[in-house]
């Protein structure tokens, strides 16, 4: 036993002190345990050195784009990813689909008392690796500890700052009748991966999330001069996260005042996802994605856009799945097997697997 004043075991304190393998409330009290947590566990893994209350970043002449997102996913680890990777990718993708280049990220951790420090270290390592992959710098952060039961292990909030280096797409209000709707990758992999992991559904092989940085897709579009100029054929871009493709299209239909019709036979869905979707009775078009970009594009250049997306590994399955039509009473519809169009409603409920 050491006599060092920083050694918790040396204090004859009647209160329980922090153990080294679990987060305790004391880690959030702002004292030396907090400092030790930040200095020995968090900062080194993220490569942060700043000791000030706020970060000062390099000046830029570009316009700034800011977004924020909170991550409360359960379970924290799932096939193909974890909450840390999701917290970086999710926020970076929101910047990317706004036409910005992600540059800086803040990181706020809300940790439940009793959370294993080893698991926190894994999440931090994942955050650091993903930030390097995406090319964003984590410049500031915060850590709060809440009593057992007040949170589900670990929640993360990230705020992302990006820069607009060229002309962003005009947005969904500019979508015109005749435009094509493109998706960049097969749908519903993230939502079903999480659901199977959470409910222990035990599919073999396990379904993996599609969680991926969408930056390479926009980079490819820029390289092919399809994005970043006033002549760009891209009207709007979105990542189809919660609510899936359906939620994005409903927002777009409302914004542009037209209707959108999907062609079911063209929608890329992996056979294993299709199987799980049928087994559980959940429509894959309502299920969340973390690596799928949806684009509305002028029809005469949609093939060029598809080709540019397919030039990137995460865009290999990019395809035109729908077309914008004059406004009808149904904002979003889908052409089924026999050619009949049916309304495609917005998802409104929690995903509950059906009985048989």
């Amino acid at each position, binding site marked *: 036993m050491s006599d060092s004043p920083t050694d918790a075991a040396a204090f004859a304190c009647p209160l329980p002190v922090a153990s080294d393998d679990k987060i305790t409330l004391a880690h959030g009290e702002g004292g030396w345990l907090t400092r030790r947590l930040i200095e020995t566990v968090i900062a080194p893994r993220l490569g942060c050195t700043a000791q000030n209350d706020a970060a000062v970043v390099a000046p830029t002449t570009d316009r700034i784009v800011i977004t924020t997102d909170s991550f409360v996913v359960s379970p924290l680890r799932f096939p193909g990813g974890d909450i840390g990777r999701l917290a970086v990718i999710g926020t970076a993708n929101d910047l990317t689909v706004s036409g910005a280049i992600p540059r800086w990220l803040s990181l706020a951790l809300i940790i439940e008392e009793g959370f294993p420090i080893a698991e926190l270290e894994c999440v931090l390592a994942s955050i650091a690796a993903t930030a390097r992959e995406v090319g964003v710098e984590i410049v500031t952060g915060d850590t709060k500890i809440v009593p057992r039961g007040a949170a589900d292990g670990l929640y993360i909030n990230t705020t992302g700052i990006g820069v607009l280096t060229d002309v962003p797409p005009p947005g969904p209000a500019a979508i015109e009748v005749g435009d094509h709707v493109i998706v960049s990758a097969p749908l519903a992999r993230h939502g079903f991966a999480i659901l199977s992991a959470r409910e*222990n559904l035990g599919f073999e092989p396990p379904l993996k999330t599609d969680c991926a940085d969408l930056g390479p897709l926009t980079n490819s579009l820029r390289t092919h001069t399809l994005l970043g100029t006033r002549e760009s054929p891209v009207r709007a871009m979105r990542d189809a996260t919660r609510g899936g493709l359906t939620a994005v299209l409903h927002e777009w239909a409302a914004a542009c005042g037209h209707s959108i019709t999907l062609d079911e036979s063209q929608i890329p869905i992996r056979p294993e996802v299709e199987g799980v979707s049928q087994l559980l*009775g959940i429509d894959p078009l309502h299920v969340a994605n973390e690596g799928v970009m949806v684009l509305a594009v002028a029809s005469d250049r949609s093939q060029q856009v598809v080709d540019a997306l397919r030039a990137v590994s995460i865009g290999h399955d990019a395809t035109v799945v729908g077309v914008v039509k004059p406004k009808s009473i149904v904002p979003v519809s889908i052409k089924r097997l*026999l050619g009949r169009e*049916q309304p495609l409603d917005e998802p409104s409920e929690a995903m*509950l697997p059906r009985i048989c």
Partner: protein
Amino acid sequence: MKYLDDFRDPAVARRLVQEIHATARRKHTIMEVCGGQTHSLLRYGIAEELSDVVELIHGPGCPVCVTPASAIDAACQLATGDDVTIVSFGDMLRVPGSNASLLDARSSGGSVRLVYSPLDAVRIAQEQPETQVVFLAVGFETTAPATALAVLQAEQLKLTNFAVLANHVRVLPAMELLMQASDCRIEAFLAAGHVCTVTGITQYEAFVQRYRVPVVVAGFEPVDLLAGILECVRLCELQTPKLVNCYERSVETIGNRSAQDVVDEVYEVADMTWRGMAEIPAGGYRLRDRFAQFDAMKRFSVGDTAVAIDSTDCRSGDILSGRIKPPDCPAFGGRCTPESPLGAPMVSSEGACAAYYRYSRRSTAS
């Protein structure tokens, strides 16, 4: 999955649609018994495509829909009690009882968990010996074997904290009740493929002869359904009541013997109240006396739930018996939607009202 694609081939489906049109010399009324079939028929636009020659009546084969409100009331009551966890399938959580659903019970602090298989409920009981785990068991002959297995497993493990609120129902007695109604318009049945996978099809022989009505066992993919409907139309035109198995890739004549044996070991046939349809003689199963210790209704004192009544605005009884179509119900799409359902057929992913709301609201909205 490639294999299943054959049963969704648009060209084959279109050929079958044409053949049905060519075969029918008048319009026929066919009931598809199973809710899963109802959803496929509406999702793929088959009901609409055939509306000139075939009227499809949507049968009561949605287990969630026919589970009585009193069973949900009992489950809610148990869930909010001390040290009891109610476990059930996803769909059941949303179905309203006379006051609340299990999801409501959960938001007011009740312990409710979702499982995919009854055996998961046994696992939960093993993992949480201090908690009484009650599985709200619903479903037709398809899910009854899995619940029976769960009970046998709990017995083998000598679990004292596992029980079942059993509400399993049997299809054939409900079909008999429908045929006995004086206003019955059903000319042929599409029998539920998955139920027949377990029960086999010999039980339908006597039914076909007694009621002089064709029964065609069909699957759930568009081509399966169209082939089944074509067979129904042929038999109606020939006025030949016959039992035909159009789902041979899944259904054997004798069914699944081991599943039948397990059900027989654990359950006995009993009269059963079906939501919206009254009590059906031999319409369900109850646990045999040997398994009384696993019967939640015997193990726990559940208050009087017999007063449970469905919303008076809800015409689910008429819908489940095929007397009216969901859009004919005055509450459909207005006071009753999937977000705030008045009756179970609007809740379940297999319920006829939910299927109409989801796939063919356009025609009612215009």
